[in-house]
């Protein structure tokens, strides 16, 4: 088991490293650099133009005259050693401050979506498999397809229309007005939870549909395995049998779905947050990309990716605990 976990851990570290490279490439992608950006901003705010000499001096100051790999090294070193992600022009402070302000919200919404997905998908998937081709199975299959076909942001748009039309106000944001700018308190947490379920469901719906299908397929495979027959021939009651054997087996591939579900949940969170204007990382990332505030954008993408990679690693650990075949390797 330790060997397996060690290997998964190595993969995780490697993946994180590649993601830092990708994030840095994103910073480099837009035409121009940090200094051209400053210059254009000064001009647009009515400032005077800088002399080419001064621009060169600035470049030297920020190390932009150095080769790209040196710049990458410095960027990474700052993140690791000082927790600095680079300067944001928009907010005039280090990107890390903006990111840490928003990240917890994103993480908690994603987490609640994840809970929602599991709590809903697991029993429905089991039901659909055990009662294969029943009316209930068909209904859930059909709803599942719709859940897959309607992406979260369209769902959010439709929700906006419905809430505006039937409740007279757009239900956006994560807090009621009276709590929005207040510091955290118990009442605010309750208020937050009251608002949370709407985006959580919207983000989770597609994943739920996918997971119901996965669970159904896995369980259908398991239901006809010989060990189920063995257990039945012992005289186990059907329900206990179902949970103890096939469901338990089908759970393993289910756990490993965390790996592919987390990225899509986070992606869904980002766009739903943009549509509903939630105070999470989505709108800030969006704005940063529109303004080409690349250090903020890259920081968000780096952290969002790292979060999902850690989530995947946790699912690997969970799998090792659940499945003796992996644990005893």
């Amino acid at each position, binding site marked *: 088991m330790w060997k397996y976990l060690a290997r998964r851990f190595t*993969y995780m570290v*490697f*993946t994180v490293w*590649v*993601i830092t490279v*990708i994030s840095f490439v*994103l910073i480099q*992608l*837009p*035409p121009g650099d940090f200094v051209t950006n400053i210059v254009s901003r000064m001009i647009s705010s009515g400032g005077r133009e800088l002399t080419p000499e001064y621009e060169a001096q600035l470049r030297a100051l920020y190390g932009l005259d150095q080769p790209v790999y040196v710049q990458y090294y410095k960027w990474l070193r700052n993140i690791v050693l000082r927790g600095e992600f680079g300067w944001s022009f928009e907010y005039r402070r280090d990107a890390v401050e903006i990111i840490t302000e928003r990240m917890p919200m994103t993480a908690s919404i994603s987490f609640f979506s994840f809970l929602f997905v599991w709590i809903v998908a697991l029993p429905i998937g089991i039901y659909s498999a055990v009662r294969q081709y029943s009316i209930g199975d068909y209904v859930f299959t*059909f709803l599942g*397809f*719709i859940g*897959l*076909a*309607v*992406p979260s*942001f*369209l769902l959010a*748009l*439709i929700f*906006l*229309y419905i809430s*505006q*039309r039937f409740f007279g106000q*757009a239900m*956006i944001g994560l807090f009621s007005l009276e709590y929005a700018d207040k510091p955290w308190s118990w009442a605010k947490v309750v208020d937050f939870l009251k608002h949370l379920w709407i985006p959580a469901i919207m983000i989770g719906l597609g994943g739920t549909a996918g997971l119901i299908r996965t669970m159904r397929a896995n369980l259908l495979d398991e239901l006809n395995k010989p060990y189920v027959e063995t257990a039945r021939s012992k005289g186990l009651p059907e329900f206990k049998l179902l949970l103890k054997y096939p469901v338990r087996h089908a759970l393993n591939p289910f756990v490993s779905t965390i*790996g*592919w579900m987390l*990225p*899509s949940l*986070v*992606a*869904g969170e*980002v*766009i739903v947050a*943009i549509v509903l204007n939630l105070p999470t990382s989505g709108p800030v*990332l*969006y704005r940063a*990309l*529109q303004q*080409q505030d690349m250090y903020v*954008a*890259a920081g*968000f*993408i780096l952290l*969002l*990716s790292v979060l*999902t*990679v850690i989530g*995947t690693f946790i699912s690997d650990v969970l799998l090792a605990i659940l499945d003796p075949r992996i644990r005893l390797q």
Partner: protein
Amino acid sequence: MSKSVTGAPRYAESEHVEIEIASQWRLMWWKFKRHRMAVVGGIIVLIYYLVALFAEFFAPVHFTTYKEEYVYAPPQTIHLFRNGKFDPYVFGYRFERDPASFKKIWYIDESVIIPIGLFQRGEPYKLWGIIPGNIHLIGPRNPEDPFYLMGADKSGRDIFSRIIYSSRVSLTVGLVGVAISLFLGILLGGLSGLLGGAVDNIIQRLTEILISIPTLPLWLALAAAVPLDWSPLQVYFMITIILSLIGWTGLGRVVRSKFLALREEEFILAATLDGVPLGRMIFRHMIPSFLSHIIASVTLSIPGMILGETALSYLGLGLRPPVVSWGVMLQETQKVAVIANYPWLLFPALAVIVVVLALNFLGDGLRDAADPYQAK
């Protein structure tokens, strides 16, 4: 593999019992036909692509045609019978000015009747920019009459026509994107599955990394880096490349697992022992045996591309006007007030949902059919 289908075997006199034989594709077709939702999905997809192909004919007007006087006109409903006879028509409009905001408030005017019909002469067009014509599938008998089946947008353009023209971009983004993904997927998945070892390991790690990055933020970031001064065509291809950059991983995995499984199959071993060269082995023996799976996977990955383009364009980071796509059209709904007052601007979303649903059903049916020998 024989293509013949023999009749019911006769036991009485014949010396040997005949076995029923059907080709793999025929078995798949039988299985596919039984999946009713998949057949319906297939027909809907076919209609979508036909409409996209002949958009000039199906759309009542061109997507740039505007009538200032009908800004934000609401959708009209088609009535089929008048005075007990079949005589389709729609009602006209009248408006009042809001005294405070001076905005037009639209009403359907039931005293104005606009007769409509199929194959009406209307706005002249050039099909695919070449063949001139002026017949439209549906339109008002008098081309000057307002005709807005799904309402009008902020410039008085017909949303129905725009949705039809948009399907060209939105549906082909999926196809081109999938073509690129397919190329990458077969190349890398095939290398991975065939060569194994270190190559497999590297490609597998790469796939894992790409899968673990949340797609949308990455797409957004890449799309945001597309220079503003690029031509619409350049942007279009850049977006499809961005979408397929991540999309290939799924196809790659399918190809790889198939190659891995096939390496163990006995008919491949038999072919190897017969000295069949590798290239012939891959194209003559291996690919045909999982072509059906590839087709199913491709169908299932088109919706993701369509949704990706829609999301990017909706956020203003993908395609930009004057290009129309469903996502570009949805950009107008970014403001809550617009959705509240002019909900018909959400019709493009319906177009997206229906085609994605249809593609999912189709792909699902194809995937089930791809395993004709597998019991259900």
